[in-house]
């Protein structure tokens, strides 16, 4: 989730009163649901920080970089991988991937794009001289060859079944070697050049970024002449800008604003089930959380249905385990995590729980509904006889605790499934040495490692099934909800959001409804 959702929910509550007082906006005057606009205006919660796609992974930045630049592969809203700058790819040996590079593609400068650019760009992500922030994305790569402009060969250190998936997300945006050498790092940051559907025009920091449609785009010119990205940090003015028709799309729409947007004649909500989960991560090293029975009780005592219904206005689903719905190897046969306070009490008794304090360290508004959910869960746990204390952290303190691995009990985490696969989510975070490494289980580790380096999907499916069962016995995460990522749209906009926040705007998925 973006850092800029923080504070917003709290404030939205304060503003709702005012909104209610003024009644539904634009009361009933139905507007045309078509447009003659040639300009797409998008408002997001924060401005971009840089145009160099290898310097940032924040959601505000990737909404731009995934459109100015292309990746070799592309994950569409349906969660599947499609060709990008590579038209096809296949595994030649266990550790050799061969990519056929799209021909006739031009950089925004008009120079031709070739396989050597892709080689340089991927190598750049882990070249210490470039000090990128994505140097851990392609650690499986051993070396890259570009024998001719149409072929790219990637050798991995061990078999890497997820390489094409890695190439589709951050770090995988392809930048031009020639242009970068010409203008240097600062020049590149000031005026980026990619192969994507939009070209850079101008940027006024914290105000607006102006992009123009790339008429020569290999995927076709998108359905607008210009795209303007505005930074509107507060949720209420962002929603107001949409309702008034000043902008066409707003991002990060909180669940409690959906009704307003849908009630307005000219706007609607479009959501995608988040490619990830909201979980309470657990420090299983501290007492009494080192006892799986206590964690069973914690999970059983959460009424997730109620949380989805009341706090999320139904904009979410109850998870069944640590793998997000929509990911590879998600087990559709598993039931949603159950609510059974009576059984929770039983397990606590069996565990010999002596009313020890259990901490939830929450941020306030950093992820949607974090504090309200903590308070609701605290009350549910109290009813089941669990002594829970909620402490509120400032975001940078949370980031520090995350790095030092010093959380006292439970804390909110909203892992994104970067690869559409459990390897890119539960293993990335909970695996040995990962940022949420507070629990080890020999069999789980063995399976996770084997699955990571196996190109046999049948074996991987079996491994993740067993890992899920172990995780539901030990609860290194207590999954709480898989929410929808909601956007507010004008009804004259036809577009389907991507579950992983990539905000892809292309000819194939975006259209203005014209009269």
């Amino acid at each position, binding site marked *: 989730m973006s*850092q800029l959702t923080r504070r917003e929910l709290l404030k939205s509550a304060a503003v709702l009163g*005012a909104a209610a007082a003024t009644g539904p906006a634009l009361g009933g005057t139905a507007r045309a649901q078509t447009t003659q606009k040639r300009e797409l205006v998008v408002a997001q919660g924060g401005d971009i920080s840089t145009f160099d796609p290898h310097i940032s992974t924040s959601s505000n930045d990737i909404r731009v970089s995934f459109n100015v630049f292309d990746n070799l592969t592309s994950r569409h809203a349906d969660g599947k991988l499609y060709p990008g700058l590579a038209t096809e790819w296949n595994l030649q040996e266990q550790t050799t991937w061969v990519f056929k590079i799209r021909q006739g593609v031009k950089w925004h400068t008009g120079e031709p794009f070739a396989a050597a650019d892709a080689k340089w760009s991927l190598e750049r992500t882990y070249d210490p001289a470039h000090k990128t922030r994505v140097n*851990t994305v392609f650690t499986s790569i051993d070396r890259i060859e570009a024998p001719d402009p149409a072929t790219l060969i990637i050798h991995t250190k061990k078999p890497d079944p997820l390489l094409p998936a890695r190439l589709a997300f951050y770090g995988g945006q392809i930048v031009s070697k020639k242009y970068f050498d010409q203008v240097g790092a600062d020049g590149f940051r000031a005026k980026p050049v990619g192969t994507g559907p939009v070209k850079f025009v101008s940027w006024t920091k914290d105000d607006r970024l102006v992009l123009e449609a790339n008429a020569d785009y290999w995927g076709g010119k998108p359905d607008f002449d210009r795209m303007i990205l505005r930074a509107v*940090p507060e949720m209420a003015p*962002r929603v*107001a800008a949409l309702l*008034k028709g000043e902008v066409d799309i707003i991002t990060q729409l909180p669940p409690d604003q959906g009704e307003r947007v849908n009630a307005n004649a000219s706007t609607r909500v479009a959501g995608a089930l988040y490619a990830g989960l909201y979980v309470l991560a657990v420090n299983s090293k501290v007492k009494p959380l080192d006892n799986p029975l206590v964690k069973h009780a914690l999970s059983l005592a959460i009424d997730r249905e109620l949380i989805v219904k009341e706090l999320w206005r139904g904009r979410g689903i109850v998870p069944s385990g640590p793998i997000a719905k929509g990911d590879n190897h998600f087990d559709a046969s598993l039931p949603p995590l159950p609510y059974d306070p009576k059984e929770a009490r039983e397990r606590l008794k069996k565990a010999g729980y002596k009313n020890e304090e259990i901490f939830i360290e929450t941020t306030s508004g950093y992820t949607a509904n974090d504090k309200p959910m903590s308070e609701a869960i605290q009350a549910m746990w109290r009813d089941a006889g669990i002594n829970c204390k909620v402490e509120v952290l400032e975001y*940078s*303190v949370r980031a520090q605790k995350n790095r030092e691995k010093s959380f006292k009990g439970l804390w909110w985490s909203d892992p994104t499934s970067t690869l559409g696969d459990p390897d890119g989510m539960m293993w990335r975070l909970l695996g040995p040495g990962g940022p949420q490494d507070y629990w080890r289980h020999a069999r789980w580790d063995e399976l996770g490692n084997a699955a990571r380096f196996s190109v046999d999907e049948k074996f991987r499916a079996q491994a993740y099934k067993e890992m899920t069962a172990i995780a539901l016995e030990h609860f290194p995460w207590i999954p709480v909800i898989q929410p929808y990522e909601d956007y507010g749209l004008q009804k004259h906009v036809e577009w389907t959001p991507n579950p992983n926040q990539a905000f892809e705007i292309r000819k194939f998925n975006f259209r203005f409804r014209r009269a």
Partner: protein
Amino acid sequence: MRPFLQFLGTRLLRALVAVWLVSTVVFGVMRLSGDPVPLLLPPDAPRSEYARVAAELGLDRPLPVQYVIFLGNTLRGDFGRSLHFRAPAMEVVAGYLPATLELGLTSFAIAVIVAVPVGLLSAVKRNSLLDQSAMAVALVGQSAPTFFLGILFILLFSLKAGWLPTSGRGTLAHLVLPALTLGAFAMASIARLTRSAVLEVLRQDYVRTARAKGLAEWLVVAKHTLKNAAVPIVTITGLQFGGLLGGAVVTETVFAWPGIGRLAIQSIYSRDYPIVQAVVFLSALLFIVINLAVDVVYGLLDPRIRPR
């Protein structure tokens, strides 16, 4: 002239000490309250990556060493490079300054132009309907939080009435709501204070004398009252201008106005020390210059205050 220079000299010296103290406090608080490095890295970055970035930013050195480097650089006018923008901090802040000045000066002008006449009229027509309604509005303006007022204005004037844009910077129309929001508090305070200052003066003997010798009421007010009531009005006006800088943080955030207030709040959240230090330095400097200006204006208004 000499006493005046001496007065100015002491003032400047005090100002320098104030700026140094403010910078030191900001330096300490920013570093004690959080670490910027984890915010710059993906959550799963390994430990070695953390160390590399910390070293790259000079944050791996002991705090006293960092402080000495910081002081030395500040003296040379170098506030370091922004961790977030990767550009010289003062340059970044200077880029945001015009927007804040535009907003701040407009709010200030509106506040003074509206508040002084309203306060004056309220005093002269004391307990009239005009006085009572003006003071009621002022009470609301003074007590409503900026955030609430801003959102209310957007809902009423942009969304309901459709007169003005909801947010952003660009045309004159974009300036109206944020300037009113930001100016509301100052406007209310100045109006209320003008009223009480004028009332105070109207009770003085020399006003009675002026009236007694048959001067027209408007002359009594314009010539004898206003100038004598000016000292407290100038004081509060100066203070309110400083207050506008603080109010800009909220107003700019609500209205997506690209100024230094919003930059400051974002930089605090991302622990971008150099930017925060540059903003605080600049704001402290501005505040001090305004105070100095107020002191000088005092002397002009009231010979008794002039340094001898």
